[in-house]
């Protein structure tokens, strides 16, 4: 009976909830969001396939070579080139050292994209997490495993967030290369928040041109060989720093079309899986 007579004033309720909101703001509580996406994964995916088909309808004529097909071939070609270069370097190294060390290779975990986090961010939620050996920092590839699309940013047991290359908080080490040359420029690429990426801090004396290919640099335990990330589409003088280039890169993968993607899991996870 006493409990029924307890009365909280509007002011006390407001400030209590405001305090709760402030605690949420201060404390890292992002697992709640991931838990929500993991719990309602199947419901949230409704309409996903229709959406992809609506945005990218199939070509009507069989003899028409689609843009997607061309992009696919272009990426395969670029990746083969990069692979060839990596193999050549490896052969040279082996020839010199005459000994090889056992090399552990990473594995791929295929995941499905549940949805985009919000209208504003370039982050997506995937339907697997720590239980599938996915950890923050791991690289995420396109469905065909032929181009880098982003990096795992947060994980829970059953879901994870992937920050796409186009996100302003995502920076990736890249190499800029050109067909028929030995040009290989190292740089950092960061998302521009829209549909592209930016490369800055490259001196104007450096020869970078529209059409140059941008590869994600090989990183130990994350990416064994360089992989296509995009193509340089604009090179102009940096307005704030006239001695530097302001380079715009168009990602190789259309970020609005992503359905299934692959996460490169590190070696230690493979070993754990074997156990």
């Amino acid at each position, binding site marked *: 009976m006493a409990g029924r007579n307890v009365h*909280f004033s*509007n002011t006390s*309720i*407001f400030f209590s*909830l*405001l305090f*709760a*909101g*402030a605690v*949420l*703001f*201060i*404390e*890292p*509580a*992002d697992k*709640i*969001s991931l838990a*929500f*996406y993991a719990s*309602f994964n199947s*419901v*949230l*995916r*409704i*309409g*996903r396939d*229709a*959406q992809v088909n*609506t*945005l990218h309808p199939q070509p009507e004529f069989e003899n028409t070579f689609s843009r997607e097909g061309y992009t696919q071939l272009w990426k395969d070609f670029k990746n083969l080139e990069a692979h060839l270069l990596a193999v050549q370097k490896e052969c040279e190294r082996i020839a010199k050292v005459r000994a090889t060390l056992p090399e552990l290779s990473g594995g791929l975990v295929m995941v499905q994209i549940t*949805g*985009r*986090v*919000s*209208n*504003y*961010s*370039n982050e997506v939620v995937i339907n697997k997490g720590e239980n599938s050996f996915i950890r923050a920092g791991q690289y995420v590839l396109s469905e065909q495993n032929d181009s880098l699309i982003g990096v795992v940013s947060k994980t829970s047991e059953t879901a994870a967030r992937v920050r796409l290359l186009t996100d*302003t*908080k995502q920076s990736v080490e890249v190499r800029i290369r050109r067909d028929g040359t030995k040009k290989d420029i190292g740089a950092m690429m960061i998302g*521009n*928040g*829209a*549909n592209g990426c930016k490369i800055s801090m490259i001196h104007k004396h450096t020869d970078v041109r529209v059409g140059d290919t941008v590869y994600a640099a090989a990183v130990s335990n994350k990416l064994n060989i360089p992989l296509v990330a995009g193509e340089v589409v604009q090179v102009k003088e940096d307005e704030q720093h006239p001695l530097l280039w302001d380079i715009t890169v168009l990602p190789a993968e259309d970020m*609005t079309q992503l359905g299934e993607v692959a996460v490169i899991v590190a070696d230690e996870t493979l070993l754990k899986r074997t156990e």
Partner: protein
Amino acid sequence: MRWFVFFIILLIATLLEAGNLLKLFAVGGRYIGPSILITLLVYYALACRTKDAIICSFLIGFAADIIAGPMGPHTVCFGLIGLLLNQANQVLLVQRAVFKALVVFVVYLIAETLSYWLGFFKEHNVQNNYYTIMFFVGIYSAVISPILWSILAALSGWANIKKTRASRVYH
């Protein structure tokens, strides 16, 4: 107020906003889609008594945080704006569809701008074209808000909302 009904409505709205079904109607790539939660916020803040309006506003903000992240900014902003709207109810007469849309549009702009700034304070996350996207999402949300408003008004009896005198016009 029957909180169970409110939670069901909030869950449906959250799932719609977070999921892909509503994005079928998005324009401009996939960026410009309607926000349902903002209509919920405006409706419940104007229709409920102060106590219920405060709780509803914070809960809707919490749902918005779950969808968009980082946690906190929407909870705080929606709570504050919900209270302000509820107090403004005594001088604000929102009967016609165009006024409803206008209120939703203005509230969306204010709420999202404040949330963005708070979010920036927390994570230093800058998004290009943010204000452009926000403007068009606000318009989209405002356009569909009279329809959602009607649905919520139809459900108000089921939810047993104890209305203020001023809010009795929202049928």
